[in-house]
């Protein structure tokens, strides 16, 4: 049994779901993760699965501590999310979630860049169909934008890998140095999946548009797989230290302005992944262990927060702070789990965020990065402000705006939230369970007197600020201008102008008797219009072509 690849159970479960339908897939969605966890646990350090094909040695699996902690987190979480999605109908979303989990596990086990890319795309395809499964027109539109982002990012990554191969560089999934265009392209491709601003908008755009269970799956895999890939290829890269700290704060600022509860949590994924990217950039053994630990913690506490937000959406059909309020008495169990998730992400002692986030902050301090330490502390304040205070206050307490519980929260959703909460509290109370899985040799004790008192000061100080300013923190029915306004509003408006101009040129040419010449701008106008209206094949083709051309131009220099 130990000779099987842990992504294989997900692949087989997907094929069987395709053949026998969603009801079988529902059970297999629980069985596959359990088998994958067993396989990961049985594979010894140093295990390798290789395959010779087209003159390349594909290293489909290379097991070590870093791969183990990420793949174990993915496989375990896939089981919890599978339970949460038990009542969700539909073969499509079941298939997509199995693909997502299998791809994620594959990325964290691959031993060479091409094998990683294979699983990377497998993961992206699963994500896209999970967003489409949201079933609304906004889901399809957000899914389209997701496709475009990840086609462009994937093309950059592939071009970078091929560029490395062309210059005789090893394709082993190991440390790269930023010399020449190829490693930069690899970095940009990975940064897009890690949602490092300004390449982040796909995340808060797409995740709230999936079904509640779809969002629960989506929140775990893509960004953390990218963190893993960055930890393999660019540890100790200064640029990532600053990018990570900046994204930790970026998510906080936008979360202040956000009204949709799942979109707010989406911005906090960006903020929390900032800690991990920062840890990768710091590059010390403590920092890499901290980034790994925080990824593990994040998968479960963010999953728990998304599950509780999804339960609210499921029960009330509402997702905006301006519509919610006073649900604590109607959904008390969901409130308890939302608070456990909120305390975990905020780094409250005895919860898992406390034992993992502080490793990265301490690593920054030990590395002499004072400004980074302070930026991460401010981001910690913002995390508690939004997910530990603002979100629960305006959803479960605060002024009641009359949301009705239209249908009960299924027991399977409650059980899944219970399991995630167990992991959050279990590893928070006994951090040794988590630390035993981490790579590298480091010494870190989270429960020292000074550390606990400092954490409590930060939390109570934030609570005091929130209480005084709570009147200013309610949701507002506005859209928040992020960089995606460029292609969601400005570029379509510009394309509309260009299309109209091309049509005029075509009409003038026809009037002048040059019908063939006039057809050229008309065809150009039709293609641009198709792109503007979001025709999938045309827009993907245009973006793919543009990304490939740019990548090749860079590589030829």
């Amino acid at each position, binding site marked *: 049994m130990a000779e099987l690849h842990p992504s294989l159970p997900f692949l087989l479960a997907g094929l069987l779901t395709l053949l026998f339908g969603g009801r079988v897939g529902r059970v297999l969605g629980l069985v596959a993760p359990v088998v994958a966890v067993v396989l990961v646990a049985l594979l010894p350090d140093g295990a390798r699965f290789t395959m010779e094909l087209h003159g390349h040695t594909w290293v489909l699996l290379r097991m070590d501590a870093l791969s183990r902690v990420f793949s174990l987190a993915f496989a375990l979480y896939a089981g919890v999310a599978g339970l949460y999605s038990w009542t969700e109908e539909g073969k499509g979303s079941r298939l997509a979630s199995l693909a997502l989990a299998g791809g994620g596990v594959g990325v964290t086990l691959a031993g060479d860049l091409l094998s990683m890319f294979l699983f990377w795309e497998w993961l992206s395809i699963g994500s896209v169909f999970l967003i489409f499964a949201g079933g609304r027109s906004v889901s399809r539109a957000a899914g389209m934008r997701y496709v475009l982002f990840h086609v462009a990012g994937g093309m950059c990554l592939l071009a970078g890998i091929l560029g490395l191969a062309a210059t005789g560089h090893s394709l082993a999934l190991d440390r790269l140095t930023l010399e020449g265009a190829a490693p930069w392209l690899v970095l940009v491709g990975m940064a897009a999946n890690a949602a490092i601003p300004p390449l982040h908008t796909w995340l808060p755009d797409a995740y709230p548009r999936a079904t509640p269970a779809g969002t629960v799956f989506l929140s775990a895999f893509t960004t953390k797989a990218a963190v893993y890939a960055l930890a393999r290829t660019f540890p100790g890269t200064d640029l990532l230290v600053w990018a990570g700290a900046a994204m930790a704060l970026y998510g906080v600022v936008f979360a*202040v302005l956000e009204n949709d509860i799942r979109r707010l949590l989406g911005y906090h994924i960006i903020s929390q992944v900032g800690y991990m990217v920062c840890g990768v950039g710091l590059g010390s053994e403590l920092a890499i262990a901290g980034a790994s630990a925080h990824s593990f913690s994040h998968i479960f506490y963010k999953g728990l927060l998304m599950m509780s937000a999804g339960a609210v959406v499921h029960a009330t059909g509402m997702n905006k702070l301006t519509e919610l309020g006073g649900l604590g008495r109607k959904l008390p169990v969901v409130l308890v789990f939302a608070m456990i998730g909120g305390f975990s992400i905020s780094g409250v002692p005895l919860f898992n965020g406390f034992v993992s986030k502080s490793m990265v902050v301490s690593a920054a301090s030990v590395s002499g990065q004072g400004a980074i330490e302070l930026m991460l502390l401010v981001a910690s304040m913002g995390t508690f402000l939004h997910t530990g205070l603002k979100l629960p206050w305006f959803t479960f307490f605060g002024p009641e705006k009359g949301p009705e519980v239209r249908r009960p929260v299924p027991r399977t959703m409650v059980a899944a939230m219970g399991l995630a909460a167990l992991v959050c509290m279990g590893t928070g109370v006994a951090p040794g369970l988590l630390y035993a899985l981490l790579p590298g040799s480091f010494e870190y004790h989270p429960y020292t007197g000074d550390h606990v008192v*400092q954490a409590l000061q930060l939390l109570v*100080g934030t609570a005091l600020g929130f209480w005084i300013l709570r009147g200013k923190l309610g949701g507002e029915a506005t859209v928040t201008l992020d960089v995606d306004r460029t292609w969601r509003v400005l570029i379509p408006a510009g394309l509309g102008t260009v299309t109209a101009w091309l049509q005029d040129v075509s009409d003038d040419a026809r009037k002048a008797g040059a019908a063939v010449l006039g057809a050229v701008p008309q065809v150009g106008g039709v293609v641009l219009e198709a792109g503007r209206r979001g025709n999938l094949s045309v827009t993907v083709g245009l973006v793919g072509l543009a990304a490939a051309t740019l990548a090749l131009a860079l590589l030829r220099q």
Partner: protein
Amino acid sequence: MTARRVTWVLAAVLLLLVVVEIAFPHHAPVFVWHHLTGLHAIIGFVSCVVVVLLSKAVGKWFLQRHEVWDPEERGDG
């Protein structure tokens, strides 16, 4: 408990935590601010106020728009 009383209770707990920190100084100070008692209380409270007021001001001035990007989801970007 009235809103005003909650404010006072939180302020009192915060003050207590600052006093308690005197017994637990930073165990491995690196920077000068690691010697400051109550630094985390100040960061928590002051940065909370600054981030909320600054974000809201930038939101009003520039970032928050009454636009409809997706007709199906009014006010949701």
